[in-house]
């Protein structure tokens, strides 16, 4: 049971909010349950849509890098609800499920290139040791990213880190709201559902 009730989103008539919820139901990431919590306050639902649209789905930094950082954050802060979602945009940019397997051991993994590792190290610093972002880290980052990409990537990691830290206190789960599609769910979440 969620700690805050799901807003009865089926009754929402505002076309902008309706479109945001329909997108969640059909495409996921975010899935409908977290949006149904935000729907209690239309300003937060609209705001999160704008954050996601401008700094995650689109923007100056490639989406696949941001998707890896999003799931790294999920794994490291243990937000299972968020970590069991996959961005369809990431898949279209070439990410496969195995790319998510070694995120917590990214520095020692040969699955990630130096650019991906630098981005993940940035995400790690934002979550766990912001004061420890030293010259070595910034040198790595500037080697692979423009200042604009670093601003957008860091801002986005801040947003997803904060949202996931909040969501993990809410005890929400998948298939509880507008359960129209499995789009955006991780394969192991789909297998668990199939097993009932």
């Amino acid at each position, binding site marked *: 049971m969620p700690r805050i009730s799901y807003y009865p989103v089926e009754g929402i008539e505002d076309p902008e909010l309706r479109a945001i919820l329909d997108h969640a139901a059909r495409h996921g990431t975010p899935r409908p349950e977290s949006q149904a919590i935000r729907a209690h306050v239309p*300003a*937060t639902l609209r705001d999160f849509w704008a954050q996601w649209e401008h700094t995650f789905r689109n923007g100056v930094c490639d989406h696949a890098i941001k998707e890896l950082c999003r799931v790294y954050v999920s794994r490291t802060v243990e937000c299972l609800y968020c970590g069991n979602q996959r961005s369809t945009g990431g898949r279209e940019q070439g990410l496969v499920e195995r790319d998510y397997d070694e995120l917590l051991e990214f520095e020692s993994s040969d699955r990630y290139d130096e650019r991906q590792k630098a981005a993940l190290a940035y995400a790690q610093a*934002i979550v766990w040791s912001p004061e420890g972002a030293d010259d070595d880290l910034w040198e790595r980052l500037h080697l692979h990213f423009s200042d604009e990409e670093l601003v957008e990537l860091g*801002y986005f990691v*801040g947003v997803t880190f904060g949202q996931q*830290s909040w969501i993990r*206190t809410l005890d929400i789960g998948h298939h509880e709201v507008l359960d129209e599609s499995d789009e955006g769910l991780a394969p192991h979440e789909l297998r668990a559902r199939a097993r009932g």
Partner: protein
Amino acid sequence: MTRRVDPVGAGDAIRARVPNVLRTYRSTRANVLEGGSVDPALKELCARFLAEDEEMAGLDETDAYDERERAALDWAQAIAWDPGLADDDLWERLHSNFTEPELVELGYYIAIVHGQLHWLRTLGVHPPREQLIAP
């Protein structure tokens, strides 16, 4: 001397390198961080807690905060540092002191400020107290 125009804070100066980032955050600031229905003083208290303001009274000081403030600060602590603290007792206190829309606005607020403070610290930016409500 009469104030002319305030300079933007360091956070906004950095966000401005990507206009869509600054535009998005300024909308967040207006509509959720500084706007909304939750008392701005309560939001600022949570932001000071997240920023680890050493001038704040500790959560263990029993008379320092009223029930509503204490519930909000305990939730901020759970969100930022230990989700295990968000137990039945805390949720009972949260629902006793806030409506569900207020809880959504407050939780969303804490999430945004927590994330932005962490990111800004990696850049060596520590927003001054007067900017903490929307760093």
